[in-house]
Every structure is written in C-alpha cells, then in structure tokens.
C-alpha cells in the first residue's frame, strides 16, 4: 500500500528563493527509504511538507490517501512523525520528561500508560537517567537523542528523520539503526552517511538542486560512479559497498 505520495511538489520560501522544482516521490507501507543529496538540495524542505509544516506552492502531498491540506493536518500529524535536523527546533519543554510526554499527551494518552511510553522511548535512546533535566542543558548529541525519543513516543506510522545520526556517538548511531530496524513502521531517512544508508535502507532516492535525480536500490546507486560524482556523493575513505553484506530486504 502506498503511504506517501508526493507529486510535482514545488516550494518557494517567503524571501523568494525557490527550493523545490517539481518533486515526485512514492513510498510504500513498511519500506525504509534513504533520501540522499548534497547540501542545499531541498531535502529538509521536502521533509517539512510531509506533515504540512510547509505547504506546497505547486503539486501535492498525500499521506495514506489523505491529501495534506488544512482540514487533514491534525490527522496527518498523528501519522507522520518528524525528527528535525536541528534538535533545538524540537525541544521546548522545561524537562526532558515533559518534552517526551508532550506528543502522546496530545494524542490522549494519560497516567501510567503515558509514563510507560515516556520511559520506554527514553530507554530506547539511552536517556532515561536524564528524564528530569532541562533539554537545553544537554550536550548536542544528547539533545538529538531526546528529539528522537519525542517522536518515537508518539508511535507514528511513518517516521521521517532528517539526519538523525549526525552528532551521535558511534554506539548510539548503531543503536538507532537497531531501533529503526526493529520498528514496524515506514521510514524515510535523510542522511549524508552513505554507509549508514546502505546498512539501513534497501532503497534510496537522490534529490539534487530541487529535483529528484535518482531512485533505486541503495547499493546500485552507491556504485553508480557517474551519478555519485554529479551530485556530490562520495563514499568515505576506506569504504567499498561491494565488500559489505546486502541489507535485509535489499
């Protein structure tokens, strides 16, 4: 079943700068897709359309058959959970506990069940002991982990992550990959970490200059040297995708 349907999406920022020029993207239920592309390609802009934080100048976005328009926003946001690129945009409550509880509480979860969800989400990202600290007094990586927890606690059907692994220590990065693999949700993940994309996402799409330039199995894209060079994608030092096992489902 198709859960995410982006068609001809264009976006112009209020200062007149156009970031997307007609983007198409389709994601089926249960897929894990990596969204790759150079800095300034429009990845974040695209992501912010998926729950109606930005609204299209042209084209359309559909989530599980529902167009993302004003009247559906509440329902769309219940289904699509976004982890923002900048954790400071995500955390706003006085304590970590309040912040993680914020989403589920808005969904009507209360009492013991709410506490359970909060602690479970914090446990998944290894931040339980920080539950009573103010989020703006944490290290950057800790804030990122809490930001992930705030979204996990909402149990969305579609999980969209904008560079979730940046600023995470290597173990947290692997643990996040384990969490994402263990969840039964559709995942769209923006990343600049190509080995991470290969490890986690059987399929990748490449956005560059505001248009979609490639869509296919991650390994095939990463070994397409011409494509990679054209869009500032390079494999890191010491990494060869041909030497590593194929991700499950790829």
């Amino acid at each position, binding site marked *: 079943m198709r859960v995410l349907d982006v068609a001809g999406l264009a976006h112009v920022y209020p200062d007149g700068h156009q970031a997307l020029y007609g983007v198409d993207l389709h994601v089926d239920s249960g897929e894990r897709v990596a969204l790759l592309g150079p800095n300034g390609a429009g990845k974040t802009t695209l992501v912010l359309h998926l729950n109606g934080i930005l609204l299209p100048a042209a084209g359309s976005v559909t989530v599980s058959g529902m167009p993302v328009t004003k009247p559906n926003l509440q329902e769309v946001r219940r289904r699509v959970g976004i982890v923002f690129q900048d954790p400071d945009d995500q955390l706003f409550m006085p304590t970590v506990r309040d912040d993680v509880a914020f989403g589920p509480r808005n969904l009507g979860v209360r009492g013991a069940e709410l506490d359970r969800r909060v602690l479970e989400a914090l446990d998944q990202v290894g931040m339980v002991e920080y539950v009573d600290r103010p989020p*703006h007094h944490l290290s950057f990586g800790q804030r990122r982990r809490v930001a992930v927890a705030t979204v996990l606690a909402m149990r969305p059907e579609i999980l969209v992550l904008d560079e979730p692994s940046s600023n995470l220590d290597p173990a947290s990065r692997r643990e996040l990959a384990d969490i994402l693999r263990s969840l039964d949700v559709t995942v769209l993940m923006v990343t600049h970490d190509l080995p991470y994309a290969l490890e986690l996402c059987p399929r990748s799409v490449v956005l560059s200059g505001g248009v979609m330039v490639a869509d296919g199995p991650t390994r095939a894209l990463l070994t397409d040297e011409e494509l990679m060079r054209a869009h500032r994608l390079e494999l890191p030092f010491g990494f060869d995708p041909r030497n590593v096992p194929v991700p499950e489902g790829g």
Partner: protein
Amino acid sequence: MGAGHGHRLHYHGHSPVHRAEPHHKLLALVGFVLLVVATPGDAYPFFAGYLAVLAAVVARSGVPPSYLLKRTVVELPFVVFALIVPFVSRGPQTEVWGVTVSEPGLVAAGALLMKGTLGVLASLLLAATTEPHDVVRGLERLRMPAPLVQILSFMVRYLDVVGDEMGRMRTALASRGFTARNPRHWPVIARSAGALFIRSYERGERVHLAMLSRGHAPGERA
C-alpha cells in the same frame, strides 16, 4: 528555550503565596491597588496599615525583602518627578530645611510617592511569586479575550527565545574578538538586532510548528 524555566523576576519557592491560584493573586493585587489609590493623600495611618499588610504577605512568601527592594528601581524616574513637584508647583509656599517649596506640591508629592511605592511593591511581589505562564493562565481564567491571551502567551515564550538567541549571539561576538564598549561598534549591534528579530521569529515559528507536529492543537494549553 521552552516556556517556563524561571524568570529573572521570579523568586523560586513553595510558600502559600507561591502556590495560591494565579487569578486570585491578580484579583488581590488589583483590589489592593484600587484601595490604595482611593485613599486620600493625607490619611497617613491608612498607608502605614497597607504597608504592614504587604510586609506580612512578603514575610509569608519567604521572598527576601532586599530582593524586592532592589527591584523597585523601576520607580526611579517617578521618584525624580515626585521630588521636583514641590519646586515647580503653585500655591502657598512653605519652608523645609531652609528651602522654599509649594505646600500643596509637597503633599501631592508625598501622596504620589506613597501610593506609587505601595503599588510597585505589590506588583513586584506578584512577579516574584508567580511564573509568567501562570500569570497568563490567571488572566485567561479572568476572561481576558482569547486574542490577547494568545499574544501574551507568545510574548512570554518569545522572551525566552529572544534571550536564548541573544546569548548565542553574545558568545559568537565574543569569540570573534568583539567588545561592545566602543560606540563605533553600535552600528554592528543595530544590524545584528535586525537579524535577531528574524532569527527569533523563525526559531519561535519552527518550535511552534514542532509543537503542532506533535499533535498540539492551539487553544489547548501546552
């Protein structure tokens, strides 16, 4: 950056005064000030009584009196004015410590000072014992129209955002060798103030949208 991690006017505590419902405190403040203002300017025993009541509440709240007194500097321009009144006023003249002043002016100045000071102290006590977002809640309970409540709650949130962005800016300025002591640097401050406005707006907007993304419905309380 979020709402409610204290405020520089707020004095943290758990006294009955802190815990009282904010709308009750607001009503008490307004009632008290109305009473003070309605009292004739020369009814000195009454003013002594008001001061005693206020002192009792301060004592109960556990807020150190010095904490409140330090903050009465907001009254300063007004004190300056009150001190000038006796010199520029009309009416019969009288002599105080060898200086000729207007007698009605003197009485008026005394009344202004007493009434003003009592009002200032009462307000400062409310601020010291009530978190800004509780004040918003109290005003909401008192049926302040929704758009005003909305503007007020955004204002309270933005006080934090602007403060936070300003802190970041100060660090950035310092680490690139900037010191603001020189007036030649003022244009830099003016230019960065414009950037601060937009940055704060957009940060606040993104945080607001992040709240919406997590199912927050405006009108409900965070």
